[in-house]
Every structure is written in C-alpha cells, then in structure tokens.
C-alpha cells in the first residue's frame, strides 16, 4: 500500500514536471517577440509543420527551429520558410529553393516541397521570407505545441492541471504548517506541565 502510494506520488510529480515543461515552452513561444504573427526567440523562429510537403526531410508534426532571415544570399537547395497566399489566406510554407531568378536587381526564388511533384506556383520574393531551416527539428513537438497552444488545449491541459497542482501544494503546505504549530503547542504544554 505504501509502495503504491509512493509510486503514485512519483508519477504525479513526473506529470507535473511534464505539464510545467510544456507550459514553459508554450509560454515562451506565446510571449516571444512577434513579427507578422511569427514568434521570434532571440533570432530563432520555431515553426510547427502542418503538411507533408517536405517529407521525408521534415515530417508533419515536427517542430523546426529556423534562423531568422537577414537578407543574406540564398542558394538552390536552401530550405526557407516564407509567407504565401493560398486560397486567399496568408500561410507559411517551408520549401526548398530549386531556382534563383535575378533580373535587373530583382531576386525571386522558385520553391518546391521535397514531396511535391511541381514547383510552387508563385515565386517567393525576399520580403516574403521569414527564416532559413538549418536542420534542427524535434519530431512530434510541433503537434504537441499545436494542441497545448490551442485555446482550449492550453486551458484544459495546462491551466487547469497547474491550478489543481497549485491547490494541492497549498493544501500540503497548510497541512505542514498546522502540523508544525500542533507540535509546537504540544511541546509548550509539556514543558508547562513539567514546571508544575
């Protein structure tokens, strides 16, 4: 019985650590400086991959850590994240450069997903480019962040458990204080009765 209780306590603590870790990651991303809605953590931009267009290089659900684009020269085979309009919605694509076009000082990039048969219809202009992928990716973390970072996901998976954990810790703390005061009182009673 004692063993089960101890195991339960350890599991609860592990769960609390995981929740605090996810809360910390989501909080950092949420509170990071945002440019055009894209989080920027000290020059690095975390992006959650939503489509299979770059598989098997980058998998759906991966979290990629990209470096903010600083107007540097880009080459064929570089993988970039950029804004694109798709069905009247501004989205972020992460695709590979397959051709660099220059004309009279104008540069544009023909891009294509590794898993796509054809290049993207619209060329990326320098102002559309957000960041450059340098190979850092964490499998599944993008998907987890999407869930934890959604309005209700964050509330149910982070805020509510943290609140319960806080109440539990408060309960434990108050219990320990009461225990301590009780022992103090008993000791005083004992010393007084000895005097008598």
């Amino acid at each position, binding site marked *: 019985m004692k063993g089960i209780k101890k195991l339960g306590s350890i599991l609860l603590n592990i769960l609390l650590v995981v929740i605090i870790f996810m809360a910390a990651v989501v*909080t950092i991303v949420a509170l990071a400086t945002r440019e055009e809605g894209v989080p920027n953590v000290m020059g690095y931009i975390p992006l959650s991959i939503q489509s299979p267009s770059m598989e098997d290089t980058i998998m759906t659900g991966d979290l990629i850590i990209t470096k903010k684009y600083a107007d540097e020269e880009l080459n064929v085979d570089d993988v970039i994240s950029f804004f694109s*309009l798709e069905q009247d919605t501004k989205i972020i694509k992460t695709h590979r450069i397959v051709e660099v076009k220059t004309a009279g000082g104008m540069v544009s990039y023909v891009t294509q997903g590794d898993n796509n048969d054809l290049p993207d219809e*619209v060329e990326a202009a320098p102002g559309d480019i957000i960041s450059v992928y340098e190979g850092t990716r964490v499998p599944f973390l993008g998907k987890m962040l999407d869930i934890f970072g959604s309005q209700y996901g964050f509330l149910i998976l982070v805020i509510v458990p*943290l609140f319960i954990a806080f109440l539990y810790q408060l309960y434990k703390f108050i219990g320990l204080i009461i225990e301590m005061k009780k022992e103090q009182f008993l000791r005083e009673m004992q010393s007084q009765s000895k005097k008598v």
Partner: protein
Amino acid sequence: MKKKQKQSILMSLLMLLITAVALTTASYAWFSVNEAVTLSNLDIQVEAAEGIQVSTDAQTWRAAITVADILDPGPNYPGHTNQIPSQLKPVSTIGSQSLGNFEFFEGTLIEDATTTLTTTESPAEAAGDVGSYMAFDLFIRSATTEDIYLASPTALTYAPLDGEDSVGLELATRVAFFNRGTQSDNDPAGARALAGGTSSTQVIWEPNALENTPTAIIDGATAGTKEPYYGVKAAGTGLELENFDTQSTHFELVTTITPDTDASPFDTTNPDNIIFTVTPGITKVRVYIWIEGQDVDCSNDISLGVGTVAATIRFIKL
C-alpha cells in the same frame, strides 16, 4: 525531527511558488495569445505574378500583400496615408485630381419640403481606419517595361454586415489606379515621395459594371450594359437628386470608365485592358476603392447603407 520538518516546509513552499509562477505566466500567455485583433469586415489582397513584385514601402518586396501590410507598411514608410476604413460609405468622384489625389465628395440628404443633397469634399486622406473610401500606395517593381493587366481572381465582393441586405453597394464599387510615376530601383525614398500630378495616368474600373439591381433596372438601367453616371465634381447645398445635366457646376457625366475593361477585364489581347504601364524601377500607384454614390445601383440616397468589401487584385504582365 525539527530539521526534517523545516526541510519539508521549505520544499513544500518552493513547490507552491513554482506552481504559482507557472500558473501565473501560463495564464498571462493564454490571455495574450487569445487577444486577437481582426479586421473581420475587410479583406484586401494584392498579388503579383511572375516577373513583378509588390511592396507597401518600396523596400520590402513580396509576391503578395494583405490589408495588414497596407495598414502597417513598416518603419521605412512612416508618413504613409494608407486609408483603410473598416466600413465603406458611398462617395462620388469624376476622377478629377487635386494635389496628386483623387477628389472625392460625400453626400448628405436633407429632408425638408423636398429632399435635397448636400455634397462636401471628403476630408484629407490619412493613415488608418478613417474616411469613407480606401486609398493606399502600392509599389510595383519591374526589371523591364511592362503593361500590367488584371487577372483572375481579381474581384470585389460584398460582405454583409450584421445581416443587412445589400443595397447594391458591390455593384456600385469602383477601383482606380493612379500611376504616380517611376523612380530608379536604388531610390526607394524617391519612389515613396512620388506625388504624381495632372500628367499622371489614371484608370477607373467598375468590377461589376454589367450587373444592376432590380431597382436600377426599374429606374431605367439596361441589364447587361454599363451605365454612365453623373459624378459629383464640386461641393454644394440644396442640390436636386435628378436633372443632374442642369446642375453642371456640381455634376459631370462620366460616360466612359477607362479602360473599357468591363466586358472581359482579364483579356490581355485587348490593349484597353491595360491598367497601367511600369518601366524599369519602382512604380508608385495609388489605389482607390470606393462605392460610387451616384451609381444607378446605389439608389437615390447616397447616404444610405453601409457595407464591407472583400477585394482581391491580381496583376500580371504578358
């Protein structure tokens, strides 16, 4: 025992603080992320096809821009006057220019023994959610001289506001492109400063010219044809809502909307469909989108009704 107890209390206090901090910062993050500013009643997208790029500040070049880019062109263009009201109201113009801008007039109906119209000049254009019509600067970059056409899915559609029925506002919308000139590629500041003048070229396009409301047809509009209209050209009071031809000081017949794009505006074999021509460098174009109060589809009351518009503009070159 005492020492062990003290340690337990300290550990418990530490855990309490950790969860309190985690809860506070997580809650703050949740609230801040869920505070969204949306312009749900407005949607503008400008797209450029291969070989041309667009910008809202003549420095950051993109394949497409949205209303967010127009509202905030960035630190390079602090003095912009991109006017994007969240609601459009009918105004009128004949395409005359004043100080490098189109002249627009607003109308108010005065209900008395008879109903008359008072027209006043629209306020000076300013940045932000102000005014009754949209006006914004667009920069187009090209390496060669190109004639620019509109292409699918260019359109203006009406978005109902709070369940209101359309009064024909989308059928009365106009788009104008006012070419203010070209500056060399390495002079974005000069491009931003282009003010245009009377020699600048302009084009007014009526996207839904061949459609009319049932009311307009009853009033004499011919279905399937573009209707000329008497645009307002001066401020005035006590103006009649008919017999515009006898009030030539304040109204002028606009018979042609150039170019004559309405039948098949995306037909690139028709030179009339050229919206503007760009030369090598940065061309500054002032784009206007408004609801023409004097359009037959706008009914007799140009102060009546508000609506919101979704605009997609796509430029191509041959």
